[in-house]
């Protein structure tokens, strides 16, 4: 274990990216993720890298596309409204099978919304991050430590499977400070980027980075090939955390900052003798269906908690094949629930189960 440093979540993402060999960053300022750009602007020149402030989110994601297309480890970051602007570029990046990391430090929406923490981009991140048949590898850190370690994972999965990866955080994680250890494992199994467009040097055939297929059969085949890789990602890269699920009557499903609030509520509920546990998806796509299905064999009730109006509920229902009731508790618009509010919801459900 390395030396711990006290850092904001946003800064931890930036430093982790650099430590994982990402020396190029293209971004545009937006609250509450601006610290990422600022950190990059300060650090990149000192490590021989580049931080370029683009004229727009649209330009930034396309600079990322150019950098990724030429074989560079590259990242961009934004917050919710900016991610909407990036979604065109994200779709092209998927269509071209390019690896890169996109950070969304979510704020409240829709529209300009607010600047307080939110998880209201769950649908966007997991279902519709651009047009077309596509997925992103989506991780949801729940601590400043995970802001760093999952950044490393996002880069590695992106490179391994030639897919963009998204770090779906929120304003609270971005702004809060916790001790973080930047230990990076040496990666040796990542494939060489022989497909990159960076000048063939007369040594190979030309590379074409392209998402256009005029023959629908060709397009279908390219999508099926990509979905075969998605299946590998599902098999190999799905991650979650379980807490006291084995004997739980009630299983809370929560990710990111909300899972932290739920842990406090769960400890308080356990102290009152209520058997409640937590399944925390660490990857939102792929979604950890297996542990949920297993928990449904013994648990009586599932409670989804999010900072939105219940966007993950359907995924949980599908994962457990609607075998148990699934209810929702959350706050939205930038409001964070207290652990006491979640505890009250747990007690309400426990009361219902006892009847």
């Amino acid at each position, binding site marked *: 274990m390395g030396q711990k440093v006290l850092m904001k979540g946003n800064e931890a993402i930036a430093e982790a990216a650099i430590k994982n060999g990402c020396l*190029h960053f293209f971004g545009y300022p937006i609250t509450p993720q601006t610290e990422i750009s600022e950190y990059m602007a300060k650090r990149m020149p000192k490590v021989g890298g580049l931080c370029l402030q683009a004229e727009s989110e649209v330009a930034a994601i396309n600079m990322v596309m150019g950098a990724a297309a030429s074989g560079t480890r590259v990242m961009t970051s934004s917050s919710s409204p900016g991610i909407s602007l990036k979604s065109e570029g994200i779709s092209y990046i998927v269509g071209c099978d390019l690896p890169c990391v996109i950070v969304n430090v979510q704020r409240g929406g829709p529209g300009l919304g607010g600047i307080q923490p939110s998880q209201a981009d769950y649908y966007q991140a997991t279902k519709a991050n651009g047009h077309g048949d596509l997925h992103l590898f989506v991780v949801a850190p729940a601590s400043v430590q995970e802001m760093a370690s999952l950044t490393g994972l996002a880069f590695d999965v992106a490179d391994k499977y030639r897919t963009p990866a998204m770090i779906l955080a929120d304003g609270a994680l971005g702004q809060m400070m916790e001790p973080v250890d930047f230990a990076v494992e040496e990666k040796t199994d990542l494939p060489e980027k022989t497909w990159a467009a960076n000048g063939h040097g007369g040594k190979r055939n030309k590379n074409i980075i392209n998402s256009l297929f005029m023959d629908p059969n060709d397009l279908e085949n390219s999508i099926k090939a990509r979905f075969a890789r998605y299946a590998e990602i599902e098999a190999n890269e799905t991650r979650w955390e379980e807490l006291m699920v084995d004997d739980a009557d009630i299983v809370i499903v929560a990710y990111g900052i909300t899972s932290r609030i739920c842990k406090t509520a769960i400890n308080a509920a356990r102290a009152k003798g209520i058997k409640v546990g937590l399944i925390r998806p660490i990857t939102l796509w792929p979604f950890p269906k297996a542990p949920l299905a297993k928990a449904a064999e013994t648990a009586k009730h599932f409670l989804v908690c999010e900072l939105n109006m219940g966007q993950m509920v359907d995924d949980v229902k599908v994962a457990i094949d609607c075998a148990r009731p699934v209810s929702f508790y959350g706050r939205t618009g930038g409001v964070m629930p207290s652990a006491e509010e979640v505890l009250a919801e747990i007690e309400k459900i426990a009361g219902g189960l006892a009847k």
Partner: protein
Amino acid sequence: MIVFDKPKALSNVPLHYCPGCTHGIVHRLVAEALDALDITDRTVGVAPVGCSVFAYNYFECDMIQAAHGRAPAVATGVKRTHPDTIVFTYQGDGDLAAIGTAETVHSATRGENITIIFINNAIYGMTGGQMAPTTLPGQVTTTSPYGRDPKIQGNPVRVCEMLSTLDGVAYAERVSVDSPKNINNAKKAIKKAFQNQIDGKGFSIVEVLSTCPTNWGMSPADSLEWLRQNMMPHYPLGVYKDIDAKKEEN
């Protein structure tokens, strides 16, 4: 002995362009510049959305196909992470001067060391003859069926004039491919725009006045005459900016 041969940098595949379209000429000029400067093996081209969307099939260098209007941003990403490559975009008027205006202006003002080949044919060709940002006042298109009225559809944009005001621009020239003499000038301009990049001088753009016989509804020969009669007065040929101009005069 003079041998007329296909440039090495031009791929050995049939182009998809319509009869009489000038894209083929400009492709050839780009390929000739890559050959002359011997840079194909370290060049990355960025294709647009529009008629030249398939440009990635036509050049023997590495190619990237960009989203509509975003080619200069993609080119920025390549050039900034691989400064030793030679990066060019090949864009039409809708791509460069409408949907991609911000990317064009800001890559220019940042002084990105890239080369842009800009085809101005005053119309959207790929989608079948709609109004372009460069469509002339009075010009009939499918989306300006009564002729472009500046009071309704606004005025056309003069790209070289606009970009020449920006500090980051090293070179901006408007050429035409309507005659052997003008093609020769265009060839020199395109080569210079690549040479500038090799020399690290910064943003270079060559705007090429081009024809679209299919969507203009004219024969190729009439199109060339229409270009001379209508486009050239509105879009005068010439060098709008050249940071070397003074040196050359001496």
